[in-house]
Structures are given as C-alpha cells and as structure tokens.
C-alpha cells in the first residue's frame, strides 16, 4: 500500500485509514436502523408518505443538497491543496467547508421552525390529528434529519480542529492522514444526506 503520507516510524497510515473506514461502517449501521424503520413504515403507508412529503420545501432541500455536495468538493480540494504544499489554500478551503456546513444548518433551522410554527412536531395536536402515515413520516423526518444534523455539527468541529492543526503545521504535505480521515467522515455525512434528500423531499 502506498505510504506517501507516512512520516515517523510510530505512525501506521494504512492502519489509521482502516480504522476510519471501520468507524464509517458503524455510522452506516447506526443510520441503517432508521432507514430500516423508514422502509417498513413507508411500505405500510405509501400514499400518506407521498402526501406528507409535499409539505416539505423541495427548493430548500435541493439548495441544501447542493451546499453539502459543494462542501465535499471544498474538503477534497483542501486535501489536494495541502498535498501540493499550499497550506494557506488548504486552510481557506477547510474554512469554506465549515461555512457551507453552517449555511446548511441555518437552512435546516428555518425548515424546522417553519414546521414547528405550523404545529407539525412530534406529539403535537395538529400532527396527531393527521393519518398514521403522516405522523410516522414527520417522526422519521425529525429524528433522521436531527441525527444527521448532530453529525454535521460533529463534522464541523472536527474540521475546525483540522484547520487549526493545518495552520500550526502539525498537518503537513508529508503527514496529513488526519485530514484525509476527517474528509472521509465529512463525505459520509454528505452521503447520508444524499439518501435522506430523495426519501423525504422527492417522493411527491
């Protein structure tokens, strides 16, 4: 396995990569449980899910998807900038990733407040007056985008730490396994959204 980022003899680049991928598998299984619940309830209430999905803003969902995809791009560019020795560009691109992530969260905040304002939140009288399928749809919507949001926050904190380490030259062209692993995590967070988006916004 190519070890171009390997520096000191105490570091195992391939091992740290393997560990990160294994961690990503656990995250896939964590969300997988929720996707399983989604698939069960949607197969039981296809029409109600279809109807409830119309209540979500496809425009806002699409914007958020583009934002996250772009943030994955900036993250990948941050890594290749560092590999070419351009520390400043790398730090700026990591910052851009964080900014995009924050915009995503702001959009989500507006989305959620909109629904809550309409009276559509877990256990609300308005929601309980709707059909079972719609109640389950909104329950899944809040739990899955909520858990995803928590992971977005964690990712932003992680990238923030990587930014600081890159600035302090503790992450370098020769030794940037940490940054690559942080990138992998961010790409997974993006990928989970890529699955959430059609399942909640596009099934109208």
């Amino acid at each position, binding site marked *: 396995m190519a070890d171009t980022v390997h520096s000191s003899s105490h570091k195992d680049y391939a091992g740290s990569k393997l560990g990160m991928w294994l961690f990503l*598998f656990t*995250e896939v299984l*964590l969300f997988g449980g929720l996707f399983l*619940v989604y698939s069960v309830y949607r197969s039981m209430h296809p029409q109600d899910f279809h109807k409830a999905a119309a209540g979500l803003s496809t425009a806002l969902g699409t914007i958020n998807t583009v934002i996250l995809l772009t943030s994955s791009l900036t993250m990948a560019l941050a890594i290749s900038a560092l590999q070419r020795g351009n520390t400043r560009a790398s730090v700026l691109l990591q910052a851009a990733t964080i900014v995009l992530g924050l915009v995503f969260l702001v959009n989500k905040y507006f989305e959620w407040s909109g629904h809550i304002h309409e009276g559509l939140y877990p*256990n609300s009288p308005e929601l309980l007056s709707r059909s079972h*399928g719609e*109640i389950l749809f909104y*329950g899944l919507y809040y739990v899955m985008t909520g858990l995803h949001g928590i992971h977005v926050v964690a990712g932003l904190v992680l990238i923030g730490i990587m930014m600081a380490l890159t600035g302090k030259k503790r992450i370098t062209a020769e030794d940037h396994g940490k940054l690559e692993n942080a990138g992998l995590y961010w790409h997974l967070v993006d990928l989970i959204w890529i699955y959430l988006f059609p399942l909640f916004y596009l099934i109208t």
Partner: protein
Amino acid sequence: MKTNFYNTGGKHKGILAWVLSTDHKRIGLLYLSCMTVFFLTGMTLGLLMRLELIAPGRTIMAAQTYNALFTLHGVIMIFLFIIPGIPAALGNFMMPLQIGARDVSFPRLNLMSWWFYIIGAAVAITSLFTGGGPPDTGWTFYVPYSIRTGTNVSLAVFGVFLMGISSTLTGLNFVTTIHRLRAPGMTWFRMPLFVWSLYATGWVQLLATPVIAITLLMLMAERFFGIGFFDPAKGGDPILFEHLFWIYSHPAVYIMILPAMGAVTEIIPVFARRTIFGYKAIAFSSLGIALFGYLVWGHHMFTSGMSDEARMIFSLLTFLVAVPSGIKVFNWVASMYKGSIQLDTPFLLVMAFIFLFSIGGLTGLVQGALATNIQVHGTYFIVAHFHYVMFGGTAFAFFAALHYWFPKMSGRMYNEGRARIAALVLFIGFNTLYFPMFVLGWKGMPRRYYDYLPQYQPLHIVSTIGSWVLATGILLMTYNLLRSIRSGQKAGDNPWGGTTLEWKTTSPPPAENFEQIPEVTTGPYNYT
C-alpha cells in the same frame, strides 16, 4: 525486583497512572477489576431473587422490587460483565502479546473505550437511585411497557448506549490491530486461535452494536418526545422494536461466546501437550458463526405473530448456525485424543465448559424448533438454556482463561488445590441451580414471575440451594485468585509450557511487551 509494566514509571502517579494509561495491559486489568465487582453485584442480585423464589408468594420482597431485581441482574450481567467480558479484560491484555505487538493500533482509543464503559456503567447504576427508581422492564426493555413505565428507563438505556460505544470501539481497535500489527512471519494461519476468535468477535461488535444504539435512542425519543415509532395509536408497531432489539442482541450472544471458545482452544493444546486438531476448521467456524449469527434473530420472537414462512426460515438458519459450534466441540475433543493430559484447573474448567455448553447448545435447538418453541417460550426452560450457554459456557471459559493466564498477568501461581475445590463446588452448585429450571420450564413455570403455583415449589427449593453452593464456589475462587496475587508462588516466564508468544516474555511482561519483537516461523501450537 525486575522491571515490568506494573512498576515502570510514566508521567502520571498513583491511580492516574492506571486510569489514564494507554497500556493495553493496564486497560485490560482495569476492565477486569471493574467486571469482578459488577459480576459479584449481579450474583448478589441473583441470590436475592432465588431467595424470594424459595416459596410462592411474598417471601422477602414486594413484586415491584422483584421486577427491578431481575431487570438489574440482566442489565449488569449482560452489559457490564459478559459483553465486555473476555475481549475487554483478557483480549486487551493478551491479544497484542499473542501477535507479537507492542500494543493495539489505537491505544488512546482503547483508553477512551474504558472510560465510555465506566461512565456508562455509572449512568446505568445512577438510574437505580433517581427518578422513578430502577427499571422494571426486564433487560429487554420491550415496548409498550418500557415507554409507559414511570421507572428510570431512559437513564438506564442511555448508560447501555454509552457502554455500546465502548464495545464498538474495542471491536474497531482489535480488527485493525489484527490486520496491521502481527509480528514478522505471523501469517493469518499462524495466529493463535484466540486471536481468530477476537477478530470474528470484533466484526460483530463493529456491525451489530450500532443497531442497538439507534434502537435505544429511538426508545428515548419515544419516552421524551412521543415520536410514535412503536406506538400503534400513532401508526407505530411494537414488534418493530423487538426486531431491532434482537438484530443486535442475537449477534451479541456471539460476542459473548466466540472469545470464550477461543480461550478454550488456547488451553486445550497446552494441557493435552499436542497441537490443536483442525486449526482451519476452528478459524473458519468462528467467522461462520459470526456471519450466520446475524441471520437468526427471529428465533427470539417466534410467538410474536410472524408469518409461518418467516418462522421456518429463522428456524432453519438457527439449526445451521449450530453446525460450526458443533464442529468446534468435535475438534476440541479430537485435540485431546492421544494427548498427555495435565488435569490442572484451567483444563478442568475447560472440560466443564464443553459439557455445560453442549447442554446449553442442544437445548437451544429445542427452542429453535418451531413446535417445541411454543411449549418453552417465556418459561424457565429458556432461563436454564441461556444460563448454561452464558454462564456454563462463557463464564466458565472466562474462569479457565483467568487461571491459565493468571501467572502471566501477576507473575505468581494461584493455589492449585484451592482452585480445584472451588471449581468442583462451582460445577455442582451450577447444575443444582440451573438444571431443575429445564424441568420447571417444561412443566410450565413462566420466567420473570414473582409468584408461582405450589406444585413448582420443590424444584425451586433445589434451585435456591444450588445458588448458595454456586456462590460459595465463586467466592472461594475469587478469594483464591485475589490472595494468590499477593502471596502465590512466583511463576516463571512459562509455567505451563505454552507455545504461543505471550509465554516468550516475562511474567509479568515489561511495559513494551517484548525486549525484541519475535520473528515467527511456525504455527502457534508446535508441540513436536
């Protein structure tokens, strides 16, 4: 005194030198000492339960207390003792030594795993004393009761959630370590079989634990926000909880048994003075059990309303998953054939394991068959079965491995005479306590019941007496081991004449495990 990992100084002093250590040997001992306390606590709860059940009706406690007791007994024994179990305590200590490494791949993550474990345990224990009091749902937390009960379910399951993170990260660490840090010359098929079992277990910990994590988060979301996933009034399905719960909890029993089988496979060659029979069969059967173990969860739910087709498939898979375990039993027995048997305590406990695990395994097939399942589901038959496999199986193997590796970890020998007596008392007590439960269950005694019909009393009395004998054996064993740490005879590097790499370094090992990383040229059980 020679330098070893106990007296090697670091940047911390006193208790901090232990709870902030990233040395896998210290972390293993931290887990071991915590687990000992938790096991004895769980055992005490069991003794109290058996005392209550010595007569019908109220004996020493109210019904609510009894419900809390069996819930706690289950939660403590399963999540605080047996799931971390052999991997966290003995796997942490021995696996890097067995592969000729200086530590695991991620030592700081390893320490963090221990902290998640101890904080999770503390949170779970706190649930006893706050809010509505200890949970009374059983360790399975089935909905709808776990949503409606006023007892402290959320705190308890949050504690379990945290301990799940510990388990997942340990699996991640072990899988990576086994891939990356084997000594030069140690190919996959030259690894000790204990390491193979930890590898298979690591994959199960990695991929199954997140499912219980999300299930428990959903349970907390139900209790706090009334989401509705499991509430029929809102369109949810309580059976979905059962599916999600058992999709983890069945693989979890393989987390419990695979390392135990691995330890047994280590001990037999040493005490039969011959190589293991069927190395590859044992290695592959571990992987096979880990894989098939994901497919059988429905056998915990045969009476919950599944279709006949689904039940037949789960039943068939359940019978198939028993095959690799059977293969191991045959290989173990074949390994003893024409060997030169040394009847020391580790080997005696291994023989007890094979006997008790076989009973547990065969009765599992009685449960896995659809017709007989209807008779025994929810009865004492099930309670007997899982105690035979988890206690007679995993815990007995744990005791065997503890005695086997005791000299390596402590530098001293335990008292063999006392150990044999303890093992015998333990064995007699175990069977007296649990075998009557097969009969009770078959005759219709339901599980988790506080009260019962008078016709069941005689066997309940036998069982309770068995619990006292068992506890005596456990206490004797614990006393012997603890005392021998201080005053046992000094052990050399290799008192048993083992051939795996941990015996090629000092007892106890130095902080960096080996003065020089060994080069491996043969298989692990070279007794020629």
